[in-house]
């Protein structure tokens, strides 16, 4: 998990930098942004640990965090600046406390973020969104002897995902006050157990300082960006082909109700073929043919051990058809500079066994490396609630240049 998230973070940052430089080569200018945020949060009591069944014998209901961010937006005279004048992307660092350092830790989150405007409300007020994706370090993990009550967190590093809606008040031409609510999620993508995850509902207030901002790109609901292709925007279809992989952990529940974490990590690999219809510059949707091989799928139906429960668990390798699935999903994608957020819901139609015969949901962040190549960081759930696996890979977008401006 550590190596995955760290590698992806680095790749995302490099990608952001590359894109910034690429853009810079056009406009010769990007606009730097510094942000500070304070977030008091409500921690959802999804497990008894949060309700007070912990060593401190105290409910964990709140979480506080402070964030500092660096970002940039594209200069308004460049192509990307004209396309996405209010979009800022960058990296951030957040320090969290759950007021129980001994059992859950004070994790430090490092992440990439992107924020942009949804609607201008008044001359100086707009409704914005922001998402964060990254890794959080420093969790205290479950330990049967030393930390037995924390059945929530199984790895010291967990993914950090955040989505928020903010009111952005442009106080001066360089300073904005931002406040809103957010949802945050921390989990490890089933790379280790336990992995119930931590979910918080955050209140947020912060400042964003944009010292080099060009007055022409300031928040102004009167001056909506108007960039059109040379011959007008033509709706078109692009084709994303994605190859991804990951590892995952799996547990087994014995007939007496006890459970064992299966040693080692199982490989997951998949290929998506994803034709997407571009409705406009912000949104595309389509279908995806999703093939996935999961080494751990249905193995509990092929338990080798005669005497159970046991710590020395072994399995017979299931037939390929029980580890492979082919599904069809509907995909919707929000397109922004560098990053795209892709949501999908689908059903496996070529599959065998309880572990693959499901509806599945995907949450994917695509990070453009070049015009055609992007990083793919995703997560798959089964039946809207069961964590399945990460989807870490690379994609190639065919027909991406169809509608260049």
């Amino acid at each position, binding site marked *: 998990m550590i190596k995955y998230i760290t590698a992806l973070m680095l790749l995302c940052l490099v990608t952001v930098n590359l894109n910034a430089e690429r853009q810079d080569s056009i406009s010769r200018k990007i606009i730097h942004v510094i942000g500070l945020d304070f977030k008091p949060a409500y921690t959802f009591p999804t497990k008894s640990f949060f309700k007070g069944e912990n060593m401190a014998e105290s409910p964990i209901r709140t979480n506080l965090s402070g964030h500092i961010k660096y970002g940039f937006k594209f200069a308004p005279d460049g192509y990307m600046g004209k396309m996405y004048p209010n979009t800022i992307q960058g990296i951030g660092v957040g320090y969290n406390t759950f007021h129980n350092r001994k059992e859950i830790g004070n994790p430090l989150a490092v992440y990439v973020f992107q924020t942009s405007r949804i609607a201008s409300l008044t001359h100086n007020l707009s409704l914005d969104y922001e998402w964060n994706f990254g890794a959080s370090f420093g969790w205290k993990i479950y330990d049967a002897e030393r930390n037995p009550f924390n059945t929530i967190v199984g790895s010291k590093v967990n993914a950090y995902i955040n989505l928020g809606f903010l009111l952005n008040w442009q106080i001066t031409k360089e300073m904005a006050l931002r406040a809103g609510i957010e949802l945050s999620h921390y989990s490890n993508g089933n790379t280790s157990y336990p992995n119930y995850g931590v979910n918080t509902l955050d209140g947020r207030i912060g400042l964003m300082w944009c010292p080099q901002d060009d007055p022409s790109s300031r928040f102004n609901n009167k001056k909506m960006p108007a960039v059109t292709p040379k011959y007008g925007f033509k709706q078109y279809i692009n084709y994303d082909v994605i190859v991804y992989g990951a590892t995952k952990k799996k547990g087994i529940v014995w007939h007496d109700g006890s459970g064992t974490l299966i040693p*080692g990590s199982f490989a997951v690999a998949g290929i998506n073929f994803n034709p997407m219809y571009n409705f406009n510059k912000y949104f595309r949707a389509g279908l995806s043919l999703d093939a996935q091989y999961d080494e751990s799928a249905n193995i509990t139906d092929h338990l080798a051990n005669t005497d159970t429960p046991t710590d*020395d668990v072994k*399995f017979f*390798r299931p037939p390929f058809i029980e580890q492979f699935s082919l599904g069809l999903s509907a995909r919707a994608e929000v397109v922004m500079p560098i990053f795209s957020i892709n949501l999908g819901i689908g059903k496996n139609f070529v599959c065998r066994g309880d572990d693959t015969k499901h509806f599945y949901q995907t949450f994917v962040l695509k990070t453009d490396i070049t015009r055609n190549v992007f990083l793919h960081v995703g997560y798959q759930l089964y039946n809207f609630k069961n964590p399945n696996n990460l989807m870490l890979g690379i994609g190639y977008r065919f027909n991406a240049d169809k509608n260049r401006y």
Partner: protein
Amino acid sequence: MRAIHILISIICATLFTCCNSEIFIYDFIKEVPDTCFVENKIPYKLKFDSDNWDILNVYSMSALNFDIYDLNGNLKKNYLPLENGETAILSYESTYIALRIEKKDSKTMEIICTKNLNNSPVNIKIEVGNKYTRKIIEVSIKPTNKIIIDKVEYDFENDFYYSNDVIEQVDWINANLADSKEALTFSFYPYRNSQRRIEFYPDDYNVFFNMDKYLGNQLAEIIIPDIENGKPVMRNTKVIFGLREQSFWTGRVDRNHIIQTTVQGGETKRIEIYNRIEEFNVNYKVHASNPYTGEKCIFTGRLNSKDPFDCLMIFPNLDNKE
């Protein structure tokens, strides 16, 4: 593009190295037959899918103590399990069963039965497996063909014993008419139960009592000697071989025959009724063979015959009796 190639290579390498192959073991037999039906002298071959198995144990209703030989026929040991994939021939032989379980290589097990004299299939369970998993191979060994009796020999010259002086009491009564003034007549049926009785005294009782395993549930009959003028003759009198005691009517005496005696009033008399018995003993030797296997066997023992032929009525002196 070079960076993309490197990235794809890293993903492929990561996936390849991430396979959790340590957690999987080969299933040494994916399809275990419900029951392996083993017929006489026809090896039942069981194919295995991998070599990670040993013969761990063999179970049956009664204990089967196998001798375990190597493939050259040298005795290795007499206990299970086999270990570390060792090959061996397990051999079990008793009076009624002869069985071999052969593991000559890591992918095959053969079950060979050369004898099952039981009248119904013998079911055994062969446990095979390894450190993690064990599977049971159910085996049903069909009964082998029964033997048939070829001939019976009696040794009249050396071990024949004959007597007609034997008597057996069959009835009695104490007739006490001391207080009576009238006479009373008593009637008896001396032959009411006077069947000819045959008893076998085999040299091996265990074999004799399990003769159905050799001959089948329908035991065979053999001809026994009769007596004529004090000498043994072979007519066609048959008895079942395998029942130790048996009796039958010969027609020699009339079971409804009545004998009477009258006791006078004031008398007290004890009346005893006896059968006179013609008895002989002779050693026998029954020769049998299996027509399918050619296996021969001989059952030996002594035959005893008691045949009532007359009766006696005796009035013992009560004073002496006391």
